[in-house]
């Protein structure tokens, strides 16, 4: 099977300073492959280069070296509109991902317009598509559609963003820490919506997180990043049962668990 996404020796460095310039490497020599319908979890602490990697795939920044290939073609060979029909992203803070002066209906309408092209679909049909998507993801359209983003909870907004991706049906979704700003009790509902998108539309997902226990729950494949490099990459069960790198081992030990206490106080 042909892989959906392939990254070949991708590096990215930032340059800081004006007179005396410093080169700061953010991503160093990363190679990854992702098949269709697969979920890859990208794990690492803050500053490890996870988000830079996501931005490279989303075409928000250009890599300094290496190439990213989607569906057999370099990502920069797609026209912009076509590319974002194939690749979508959701981010850490749901409140800044919405236009605050637009009601939810109009935000989702834009997604329908992007998917079905403006003149080919009338408004009633578009609303119907939006409503059925929301119901499928366990949201109540009557409660949501005429509200503004600030009136909704973080968990709901994050699921509406997933609904937007559900309408667009991309091949690949980048989820950059989608649950880190959400309470532990509503985290599962967001993850469930992601799984539905994966199962029903066949979207591959790159799930970025700093929490290895969530990665184990979500992913088929796991990549652990540390200081810009991938230090551990493999199938989920392999990484869980015998991690090769010291860093992955220390990550496993720093997961807070209900059954165990680290130290006596």
């Amino acid at each position, binding site marked *: 099977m042909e892989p959906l996404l392939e990254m070949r020796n991708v590096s990215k460095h930032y340059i800081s300073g004006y007179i005396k310039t410093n080169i700061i490497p953010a991503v160093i020599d990363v190679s990854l492959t992702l098949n269709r319908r697969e979920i890859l979890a990208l794990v690492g602490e803050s500053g490890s280069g996870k988000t830079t990697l996501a931005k490279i795939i989303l075409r928000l920044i250009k890599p300094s070296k290496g190439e990213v290939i989607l569906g057999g073609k370099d990502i920069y060979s797609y026209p912009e509109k076509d590319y974002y029909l194939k690749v979508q992203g959701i981010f850490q803070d749901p409140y800044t991902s919405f236009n605050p002066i637009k009601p939810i209906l109009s935000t989702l309408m834009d997604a329908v317009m992007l998917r079905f092209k403006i003149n080919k679909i009338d408004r009633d049909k578009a609303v119907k598509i939006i409503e059925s998507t929301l119901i499928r993801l366990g949201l109540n359209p009557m409660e949501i559609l005429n509200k503004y983003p600030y009136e909704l909870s*973080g968990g709901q907004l994050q699921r509406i963003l997933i609904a937007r991706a559900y309408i667009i049906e991309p091949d690949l979704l980048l989820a950059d820490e989608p649950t880190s700003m959400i309470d532990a009790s509503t985290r599962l509902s967001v993850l469930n919506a992601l799984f539905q998108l994966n199962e029903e539309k066949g979207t591959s997902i790159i799930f970025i997180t700093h929490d290895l226990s969530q990665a184990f729950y979500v992913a088929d494949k796991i990549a652990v990043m540390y200081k810009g490099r991938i230090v551990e990459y493999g199938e989920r069960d392999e990484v869980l049962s015998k991690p090769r790198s010291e860093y992955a081992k220390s990550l496993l030990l720093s997961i807070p668990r209900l059954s165990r206490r680290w130290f006596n106080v």
Partner: protein
Amino acid sequence: MNTLDNDNKTLIVRNLKGGYKTEYGYVRAVDGVSFDVYPREIVGIVGESGSGKTTLLKLICSGGRIPPLFLEEGDIIMDGINIVKLGWNEFKSKILGKKVAYVPQAAYDAIYPYKRIWQFYEDILREIGISVNKENEDQIKQHLIECFKSLGLDPSLINRYSFELSGGMRQRAVIALIASLRVSLPLLDEPTSALDVVTQKRVLEFIANIFREGYVKSVIISSHDVATLRQIAHRMLVMYAGKIMETAKVEDIIAEPLHPYTQLLIKSLEAFEGFKSRKEYKPKVIYRELANIYTMLTITGCRFHPRCPYAMDICRKEEPPTIKVDRDRTVACWMYMKR
């Protein structure tokens, strides 16, 4: 611990009601909260966003004196002094920075960005009535350096600006400043929620350290994650919509959560607990989520009933009383009412 009389408790809170006065009216965020903190004890407050954790901590550290925060009624007794009845000057000279100190959720807010940590510390000392002059400067600096050293922090930090430190380092520096003041009850508001797991462990170890070394008498720490509090707290208070739903020792609450809300909190971690994959574990009960956190403050009857899978008729009509089920365990739920 229960045989101690009231004077020996670090903190007694009785029937505390408070909230915010805004342009649009009054919002009561803490509604009739009562609990005790004993000496040599770490108390964890757990609850979702909007449940009133932060408001409760802010009320305890200020007595509702700083607008828009407003205290309606209730008593906050610290080492035998009722801080609600004190005047502002007395409160500032006796309580603030001596008995109680508050660390906000984002330590970005805690340190003044234009000052080095040492200059910021001078400001704190001046606020609580210790003036730093040429004679005692070296002595105080030495004390702070000793304190940083004994807690495993680099002493050169005191000459840095806050933006030069990483998130976890900044959080530890702020907690170390409080430790060096020997505040008896620091209030830590979600100290680890913005940090990654490795840094989170480091910060929790640090908090355990200042407690073990005896810099502080007791600690109150809030979080939305039960597993995080499990690592450090002795006792847990579960808050929902401004009320305490359950209090118990940590081991008891993990082994057998009584209130349906506590069950939800612990169940939501079940998937991650045993490193199960998404195919092995499908959550059975999907709890409903409230659209707006403000609506949960206006619900009649038990505030959790719209989301509760066991809701009965009485839950919709009447608020449940706090029921004492065990020696140090209470729960506010009609299911545990003996008839």
